[in-house]
């Protein structure tokens, strides 16, 4: 039986990672239960609508690559979110090229206030509505810093940016959120 321990952040001990590397299913269950929440939350907040499916893909990719991983529990968590970030990018690319199906053609002629109709569909004072107004990068930096609880250095590594750039990005993201709140949720 794998020795399982948890810190306050539910981090995985190295023993668990080693057991997972050798194919121990209990260890994989421990990893899953420790990370699936933050992982799914990160993907959802970063705008991935199929977060459960992508999280499962991340998990299997971890299993394929864990024999190459070396490091402690901190770097393991960071390593997992590197994989998640790449899968999220892949998902976005696919989503951009995915044909829209199931939308019935309207007999009505084009026209009307499209922007107004779109705005009516979003509740801007809610968390999803406010996140919707951010750029992809702004959403992701908040997801990594707040949801995944990663440091600015880890976030920089995952996003492939310099630490200074991430600090600037997170400042802009929070600024955009605050402006949305101050303006009563109206898009800026």
């Amino acid at each position, binding site marked *: 039986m794998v020795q399982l321990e948890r810190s306050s952040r539910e981090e995985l001990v190295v023993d668990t990672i080693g057991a997972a590397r050798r*194919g121990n299913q209990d260890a994989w269950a421990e990893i899953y239960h420790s990370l699936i929440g933050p992982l799914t939350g990160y993907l959802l907040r970063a705008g991935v609508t199929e977060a459960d499916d992508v999280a499962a893909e991340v998990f299997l990719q971890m299993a394929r690559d864990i*024999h190459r991983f070396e490091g402690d529990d901190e770097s393991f968590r960071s390593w997992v979110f590197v994989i998640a970030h790449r899968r999220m990018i892949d998902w976005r690319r696919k989503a951009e090229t995915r044909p829209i199906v199931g939308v019935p053609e309207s007999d009505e002629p084009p026209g009307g206030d499209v922007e107004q109709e779109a705005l009516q569909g979003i509740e801007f004072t809610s968390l999803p509505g406010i996140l919707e107004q951010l750029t992809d990068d702004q959403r992701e930096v908040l997801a990594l810093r707040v949801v995944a609880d990663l440091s600015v250095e880890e976030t920089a590594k995952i996003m492939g940016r310099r630490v200074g750039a991430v600090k600037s990005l997170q400042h802009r993201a*929070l600024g955009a*959120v605050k402006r949305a*709140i101050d303006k009563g949720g109206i898009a800026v």
Partner: protein
Amino acid sequence: MSWFADRGHGQGSALLERDVEILLSGRPVGNGMEELEGLLAELRTPVPVERDSPDITRLLIEAARLARKADLNPALPRVATRVRFPAWSPAAAVAAIVLVFGAVPTAVAANTAAPGDPLYVIDRALERIGVFAGGFEERIAEVEHLNDTGRHGEALTHLDASLDEVRGRLGDRQFSMAFIQLELAHSALGSEASDLVDKVRRSLGGPSTGENQGLGNGNQGSGNQGQGNQTPGSGNQGQGSGNQGTSGNQGQGSGNQGTPGNQGQGNETPGSGNQGTPGNQGQGNQNSGPGKTDAPGSDKPGRGLGRDR
């Protein structure tokens, strides 16, 4: 003063630089930031996720299987997740120069490296990022190289380690090539390698040694005997014996029966003065598909692929 405060953005209190890290870490800053704090707290709240279901159980089983497989048969040696120079130093400067001026020739040299060579790790790393093709053909070429240089055990081990790449791309021709390699390695290593040979063979979809009675004795490549001497007066007498044992053609017996790879090539011109020149020995490769495994002049009976038809 923050960027936003400088420009007067926002209608409430300005978001100061020092407040950002405090807010992101979940601590309160007050001063008109309560709504933002509340929204970040909501963002921090764990999303509800399914923790136990048949799908999750299947996922865990599959993850454990994949990890076990990768651990037992890693494609590459484990590498550290980060490589970092301790500080800018003369050593780092030299490394940078070598990297800049030596990268291309090193990469080219690495592409031809075989397992065991110092550059082989670089070769595999470059393949992984798509610089060189890699894949089945290169793995087989490496196996051949090891086998040709007498490193039969390494050849077989390398083939075993490359099964993932091999299995995904096996066509008929490659299938034959892989089995030829197996047979050559097996014959050179003797019975002590039987288990490994069996494992690889089963992985490639073939029968195990126990099912492989006769090791393809029906493939004895007799079609090549003396073919280099068909032209009268060519002065090639004696070369026929060299061709008789060309195992490359023997191996073809399984997939290419009736394809006379060596017929008279190089000797068709009467009186060409080829006496004693083993002009036929390598030429069988041109027509033979898997003929790269030729052992010119060897008089061993053809073992073929062990897949008698």
